[in-house]
């Protein structure tokens, strides 16, 4: 028996999650679609059905995608919220890799795929309804995922910029996902709190080195500080940092799951 990763066991685990949570999943999807449609219609109604720009929709999508993603990923590994659930979960005959993969797919991958698709569908439905109600309404179906106001459009990104964009986007999900394994009680709050502390410490460190230690006026004789001597290399360094941070957090989550006790 393959004790590391078996596709058949992975499918069984996925099926188990689906069968145990069928009602909850349908409720979440129906609730999301219903509320979104209602929200968009109310939004249009408040503008006397004369809203023509897609930008408010885009802003709403970004808010839903980020806030929803953080909440959804932060509520991964629900089994670890109580001792009884933890026993049941840890005793399921599947490997940590299979449990990790199922949770990652259910809480992150499916969210990333489903939420934009459902948002787009609801946007089309709402647009069609408004078109039927208001004369001259032009449904800009293709413009929803175009972000002209952004300095670099996601579709036009290449190389390091694209890597950085994907890594930062992944961090939105990976940080709360890891927090959900690391903290048993109120994981999302604790994760955000920890993150806030880390950001503050980093800010203070930067302030200390730049202002107090006066590193901002440091001018090396030949090249820039270490290997960062141009905006491009700074971008590469930041990208590497984010990529490694994401990979490290995922690895940490996996090992935490493997070592979990009840």
């Amino acid at each position, binding site marked *: *028996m393959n004790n590391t990763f078996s596709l058949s066991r992975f499918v069984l685990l996925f099926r188990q999650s689906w*069968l145990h949570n069928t009602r909850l999943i349908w409720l979440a999807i129906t609730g999301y679609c219903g509320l979104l449609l209602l929200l968009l219609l109310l939004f249009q109604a408040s503008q006397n059905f004369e809203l023509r720009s897609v930008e408010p929709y885009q802003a709403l999508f970004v808010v839903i995608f980020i806030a929803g993603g953080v909440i959804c990923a932060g509520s991964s590994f629900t089994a670890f919220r109580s*001792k009884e659930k933890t026993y*049941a979960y*840890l*005793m*399921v005959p599947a490997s940590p890799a*299979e449990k990790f993969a199922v949770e990652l797919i259910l809480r992150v991958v499916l969210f990333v795929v489903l939420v934009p698709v459902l948002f787009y569908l609801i946007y089309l439905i709402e647009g069609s309804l408004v078109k039927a109600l208001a004369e001259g309404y032009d449904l800009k179906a293709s413009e929803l995922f175009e972000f002209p106001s952004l300095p670099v459009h996601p579709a036009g990104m290449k190389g390091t910029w694209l890597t950085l964009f994907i890594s930062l986007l992944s961090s939105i999900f990976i940080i709360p996902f890891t927090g959900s394994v690391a903290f048993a009680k109120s994981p999302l709050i604790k994760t955000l709190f920890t993150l806030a502390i880390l950001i503050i410490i980093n800010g203070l460190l930067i302030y200390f080195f730049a202002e107090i230690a006066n590193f901002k006026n440091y001018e090396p004789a030949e090249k820039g500080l270490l290997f960062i001597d141009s905006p491009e290399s700074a971008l590469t360094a930041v990208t590497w940092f984010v990529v490694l941070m994401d990979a490290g957090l995922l690895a940490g989550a996996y090992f935490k799951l493997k*070592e979990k006790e009840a």
Partner: protein
Amino acid sequence: MINIKNLSFSYKKQRKLFDSLSMELTPGSIAGLLGKNGAGKTTLLKMVSGILFPDSGELSVMGHQPAARKPSFLSDVFFVPEEFYLPSTSIRLYIKANSPFYPSFDSVLMTRLLNEFELEQENIIDQMSYGQKKKFLISFALATKCKLLILDEPTNGLDIPSKILFRKIMAGNLDDDQLVVISTHQVKDIETLIDTIIIVDNGSIILHKDIASITQQLHFTNSTVAEKEDILYSEAVPGGYRIITRQRNEESQIDIELLFNAVTKGKSLFNTSPTQAV
């Protein structure tokens, strides 16, 4: 099947719960794990199941290290904790979702046990009483045909007819290669069921014997006097005393409660070492 050597364990910032604990259990028996509150019965069961890790020592179950929680190990072990979680779904869907993880799962047995416990396949688990949930979980555990079944306080929450049924079902549905470990305070519920007694106290095993060897050496009976030359231990009961004496070549029914009290009070009842493996 279960081999424990010099096992030590302590919870964080607490004194050692187990220190150099050793024990061996073989298949084909129903072992009763007894001990006072806080003696570490549940902790020991959790370590054997792999949901708690020992600090040091050797722990091997069917040749596996439980802490590794390999699927090949987990598919042969079923743990019924005292407090458990069951999802909000029907019995039928629960079986459909979970039975494929257990290669020896016996669907016919499952159906029969559900009938015996008067549970319907379409019952929503969430809406069942604690006792009904427990009966379902015990039925599922038996139907998995796992080599090792661990039951922590299985009769808690069961009504009297269900306790009788539990004993009947347990006695009649186990294979020779299975080992059942039952931890309980309610010794009367399992008195006629178990064939091995393990008593845990102060971090060590103070008694580990099979019932046959106990009844070969000890006699349990009533007496009007508490102290006499051959009385090893006595306890006042209405109308006299329950006593333990050396075997008088008479048949007697083991009184586990009396034996437990005698052993935990440090009475020397046996000539052989108390931690002798069975």
